[in-house]
C-alpha cells in the first residue's frame, strides 16, 4: 500500500497535473472568499471542463478546488461575521468578535493553520479508513441518521448563550422554515402560497446571508464604525500560529471528529462545524469566553471542516454515496472521466484513489500558504469604516444570493430574512440555532419518514439509536444546566451592579 501511495505521488507530480491542481486551488480560493458561494458552485463551474480528461488530472482539478473552499471562506466569516460558505458558519461565533477586538490577523492565521492541519489529518485518515470504513457506513441506517440529526439539533441549548428558550424557539423556526417546499417522497408543496419560488424551499445560502450579513452590515454602517472597534490591529499572524501550537490537541480532536462525521452521508458540512464547536466548548476548561472572542472557537470548527472533506470522500469514492452536493458533483465528474466510483474503485483504480488523497493534502498546504500570505493586508479591511465598505458588499451579496436559484425571489428572500435577522440581532435573539434547525430539517424529516415506513416504532430500540439518544440527553441536560448557572450568575451580578451604582450615587 505504501509503495502504491509513492507511485501515485510520482504520477501526480507532473507539470500538467500540478498546473491543473493550482488552477483548481485558485478557483476554490475565489469561491471561498465570496460569501454565499459554496464548493458546489465551484464544482458546477469546473465540471464541464473535465469531460474526457485523464482521471488523475481531472481529480487534481476538482479536488484542488473542493479542498480549499473551507480555507478561504474564513475571510468572510472572520471579517464580516458572514458565513463564507455553509461549512464556516460556526467560525463567526468567535472569529468575528476577535476581528472586532482588532485581532483579525490572529484569528485568520489560527484559522488557516488549523485548516491546514485539519486537511492533512483528513487526508491521512482517508488513507487509513479506506479499508475499514465499509462496515461503519453500512451500519448506519435511516434511524441512526435521524438520531444524528437530533444530536446536531440538541446543540442549540449550548449555542444559545444563556437563553435556552429563545434558542429552542429559534431552532424550531429553522426546522419549520426547512419544511417549506416539496415534502419528501410525495409531490406536495407545503407553505408555498402558490409561489413557484418556494416549491424548492428557501435556499440555505440566502438564509445564511440574510440572517447574518444584512443585519451586520446595516449596523456597521448605522453606527459609523469599522468592523474592528480598536484603531490598531493587535495580535498578528505569529500569535495565531502560536495559538494553534498551544491548542494542538484541540486541533487534532476536532479534525478527527470532523473526519468521522464527514464519513456519515447526509450529515453535511453545514453541521460538522457546529458539532465541533459545541464539542470544543463543552470539553474545554474556562469555556465562558466562547462566543465573545475565544480563539479555540475558531480553531475547532476550522480544523474540522477541512478534515471533513477527507471523510466525505470515503462514502463518495468507495460506495458511490454522495454525502453532499459537492460530492454528488464529484461523482458526476468521475463518470465524465470514465471512472465508476464504488467498492471496486480501490481494486481497479487504486492509483486514482491515492492521487485524490495526495491532492487533498498538497492542495491544503498550497491553499493555506496562499491565504496566509494575503491575510495581513486583508485583515486591514477590518479597520475601514463600515459606511465605506457597504456599497461593495451590497453589490457582492445581492449578486451572490442571486446565484442560488437565479430567481428574483432569491433577492426578495434575502431582504425579508435580513429584516428578521436585524430584529433578532437587535434583541440578542440567538440566530445560529435557526440556521442549524434549517440545515437539519430536510434530512431529519427524510430519515424519520424512512424509519417510520420501514420499521414502524421498532427503530427506537436499535442499539445505535439508543446510544445517540443518550448523547442527545447528555447534551441537552448540559445545555440546560449551563443556562441555569448563567442565569443565576447574571441575577447575582444584576443585584451587585444595582448596589454598586447605588453606592456611587449616595457617595
Amino acid at each position, binding site marked *: 500500500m505504501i509503495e502504491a501511495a509513492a507511485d501515485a505521488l510520482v504520477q501526480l507530480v507532473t507539470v500538467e497535473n500540478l498546473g491543473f491542481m493550482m488552477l483548481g486551488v485558485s478557483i476554490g480560493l475565489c469561491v471561498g472568499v465570496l460569501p454565499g458561494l459554496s464548493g458546489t458552485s465551484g464544482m458546477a463551474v469546473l465540471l464541464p471542463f473535465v469531460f474526457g480528461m485523464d482521471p488523475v488530472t481531472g481529480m487534481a482539478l476538482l479536488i484542488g478546488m473542493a479542498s480549499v473552499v473551507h480555507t478561504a471562506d474564513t475571510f468572510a466569516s472572520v471579517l464580516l461575521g458572514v458565513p463564507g460558505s455553509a461549512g464556516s458558519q460556526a467560525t463567526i461565533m468567535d472569529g468575528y468578535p476577535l476581528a472586532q477586538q482588532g485581532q483579525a490577523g490572529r484569528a485568520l492565521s489560527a484559522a488557516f493553520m488549523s485548516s491546514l492541519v485539519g486537511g492533512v489529518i483528513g487526508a491521512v485518515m482517508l488513507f487509513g479508513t479506506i479499508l475499514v470504513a465499509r462496515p461503519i457506513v453500512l451500519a448506519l441506517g435511516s434511524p441512526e441518521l435521524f438520531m444524528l440529526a437530533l444530536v446536531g439539533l440538541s446543540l442549540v441549548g449550548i449555542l444559545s448563550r444563556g437563553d435556552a*428558550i429563545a434558542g429552542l424557539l429559534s431552532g*424550531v423556526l429553522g426546522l419549520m422554515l426547512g*419544511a417549506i417546499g416539496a415534502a419528501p417522497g410525495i409531490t406536495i408543496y407545503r407553505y408555498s402560497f402558490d409561489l413557484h419560488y418556494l416549491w424548492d424551499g428557501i435556499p440555505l445560502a440566502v438564509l445564511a446571508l440574510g440572517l447574518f450579513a444584512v443585519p451586520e452590515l446595516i449596523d456597521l454602517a448605522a453606527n459609523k464604525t469599522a468592523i474592528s472597534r480598536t484603531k490598531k490591529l493587535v495580535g498578528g499572524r505569529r500569535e495565531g500560529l502560536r495559538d494553534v501550537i498551544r491548542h494542538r490537541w484541540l486541533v487534532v480532536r476536532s479534525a478527527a471528529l470532523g473526519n468521522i462525521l464527514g464519513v456519515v452521508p447526509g450529515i453535511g458540512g453545514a453541521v460538522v462545524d457546529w458539532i465541533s464547536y459545541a464539542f470544543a466548548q463543552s470539553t474545554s476548561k474556562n469555556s465562558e469566553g466562547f462566543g465573545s472572542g475565544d480563539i479555540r472557537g475558531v480553531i475547532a470548527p476550522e480544523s474540522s471542516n477541512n478534515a471533513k472533506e477527507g471523510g466525505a470522500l470515503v462514502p463518495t469514492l468507495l460506495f458511490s454515496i454522495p454525502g453532499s452536493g459537492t460530492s454528488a458533483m464529484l461523482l458526476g465528474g468521475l463518470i465524465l472521466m470514465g471512472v465508476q466510483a464504488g467498492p471496486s474503485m480501490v481494486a481497479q483504480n487504486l492509483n486514482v484513489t491515492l492521487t485524490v488523497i495526495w491532492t487533498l493534502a498538497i492542495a491544503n498546504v498550497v491553499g493555506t500558504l496562499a491565504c496566509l500570505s494575503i491575510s495581513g493586508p486583508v485583515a486591514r479591511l477590518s479597520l475601514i469604516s463600515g459606511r465605506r465598505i457597504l*456599497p461593495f458588499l451590497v*453589490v*457582492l451579496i445581492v449578486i451572490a444570493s442571486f446565484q442560488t436559484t437565479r430567481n428574483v425571489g432569491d433577492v426578495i428572500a434575502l431582504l425579508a430574512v435580513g429584516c428578521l435577522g436585524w430584529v433578532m440581532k437587535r434583541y440578542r435573539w440567538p440566530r445560529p440555532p435557526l440556521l442549524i434547525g434549517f440545515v437539519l430539517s430536510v434530512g431529519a424529516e427524510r430519515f424519520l419518514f424512512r424509519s417510520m415506513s420501514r420499521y414502524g416504532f421498532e427503530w427506537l430500540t436499535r442499539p445505535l439509536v439508543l446510544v445517540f439518544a443518550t448523547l442527545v440527553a447528555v447534551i441537552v441536560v448540559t445545555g440546560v444546566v449551563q443556562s441555569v448557572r448563567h442565569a443565576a450568575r447574571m441575577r447575582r*451580578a444584576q443585584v451587585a*451592579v444595582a448596589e454598586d451604582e447605588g453606592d456611587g450615587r449616595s457617595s
Partner: protein
Amino acid sequence: MSTPGDPITPRNPLVVNARGKLVLAVFHTLVFAFMAYQAISFRMQARPFPLSMGTLGVVIGIAAVVLYTRRLLVLSRELPPVSAREAPGGDSSATTPTTSADGAATDGPAPARDLQAIAEEIRSGGAEEIDVRTAAAFFGWWVAYPVLLFAVGLTLATLVFVTGYWRAVVKGSWPRSVLVAVVLVVLMLVVQSLLNLRVPGGYLIGDLPFGLV
C-alpha cells in the same frame, strides 16, 4: 442602569430587550400556530413533521411568552433591595438568598472578580443601542440596489448605486465617486466572466454595447 428605588424607564436597554424578546416570542408562537394549523390539511405523508414540530413550537412559544412577560413586568418595577453582604467582595459566608429580577431565589454568591466581569456583561446585555431610523435608511440602500439591478442591469445599476451612495453617504467628490463605481463595475464584470455568474438582465434597459449587461 437604574438604582434601587428608581423605576426603570422604558428606555432602559434591559427593558427594551425584554420587550423585544416578548414580541419575538409572540411572533414565533403565531408563526408556529399558523404552520401547525396549515399542516392539518396536508396529505398524510407530508403531515407528521410540520405538525409535530409546529405543535412543539407552540408549546415552547407559550412558555416563552409567559416567561418574558413575567420578566418584563418585574423589570418594569424596581430592582429588589439588597444587603451589603451580597455585593462584590462582601461577606459571602453570611449571604442570604435574595429575590432576583425575575423573582427566583439566587443560589449563593459569585466570586468578586466574576461579578465585575458579569456586571459589564449586564450593562451591555440589553438591546443593542442602534438608531432605528438610521438603520432603516441603510436598509433602504439594500433595497435600492436590487430594484436598480432588475430595472437597468448590472453595469448601470452598479454605476448609479455606488456613485449615488458615495456622494450621499461618504460625501465623496463627483470624480472620486464615479471612479469608485467604475472600479467596482470592472471587478464585478471580471468575477462574473471568470466564475460564469449569471446576473439579471434589466427589465427597462436590456443589453448594453460591448456585451455589457
